[in-house]
């Protein structure tokens, strides 16, 4: 019997490199949106700690434990990546599978911040956006999430359907940065 074949959002588009920057597709594993029920924020934080060893992320922050990460992802929700949520979390929060909704790329290298400065109005200076910071903002015209994973490495997420536009916009910005030398 035939079977369904999985395809990643950026299949055939990445990797690309230029201007001291390299862009690769990231498979973050399962991704689940977690939105606490009313008044359950505290018990959810406890349940998260017990189930996955991470707490509820403060606004603009993320927490990691091995391959598992929890990202602050909006005014009342977080995104758990790298692991399927333990069912106990459903007692405290709405869980929604987002594992196929996002294109996730890693942008890294010395010129990364210069490239991103051409795409997002976000303040990416060390003081405002240290390693571990996670923000929702726009990348060119797209709703996006940006996560700083290391000194010169950022993850950029846009909706899956816009993967091609993200790669295009990154490419244009990288060419401009590369040309300045």
């Amino acid at each position, binding site marked *: 019997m035939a079977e369904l074949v999985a395809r990643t959002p950026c299949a055939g588009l990445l990797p690309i490199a230029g201007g001291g920057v390299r862009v690769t597709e990231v498979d973050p594993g399962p991704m689940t949106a977690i939105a606490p029920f009313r008044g359950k924020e505290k018990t959810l934080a406890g349940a998260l700690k017990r189930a996955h060893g991470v707490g509820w992320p403060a*606004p*603009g922050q993320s927490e990691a434990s091995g391959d598992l990460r929890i990202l602050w992802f909006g005014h009342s929700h977080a995104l758990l990546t790298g692991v399927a949520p333990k069912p106990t979390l459903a007692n405290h929060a709405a869980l929604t599978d987002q594992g196929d909704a996002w294109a996730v790329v890693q942008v890294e290298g010395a010129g990364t911040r210069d490239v991103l400065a051409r795409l997002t*109005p976000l*303040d990416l200076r060390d003081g*405002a956006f240290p390693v571990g910071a996670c923000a*929702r*903002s*726009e990348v060119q015209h797209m709703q996006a999430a940006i996560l700083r994973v290391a000194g010169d490495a950022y993850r950029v997420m846009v909706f899956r359907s816009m993967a091609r536009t993200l790669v295009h916009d990154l490419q244009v910005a990288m060419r401009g940065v590369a040309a300045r030398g």
Partner: protein
Amino acid sequence: MRIPCPICGSRDIREFDYMGHAQALDRPDPGAGAQAWDDYLHNRDNPAGPTRDLWFHGMGCGAWLVVERDTVSHEVTGATLARDVKGGAA
């Protein structure tokens, strides 16, 4: 122009959508009558000076904000989550 989102911090205006005066928070009762509904939907003051209006941080955290600003100087003096304003009023 920048707006101090209570959740995300100071952000460029391009991340926000404007809706209008914060009066939109005060939805009348279903049976409040035509005048109340007309006022709620259509009638707005046009102040020269401080005002409060609703902005949606759609390109950011998704929160609706009540932004206090001055229509003369364009100064933005504060922003509060609409759900907190609403919660406080209730």
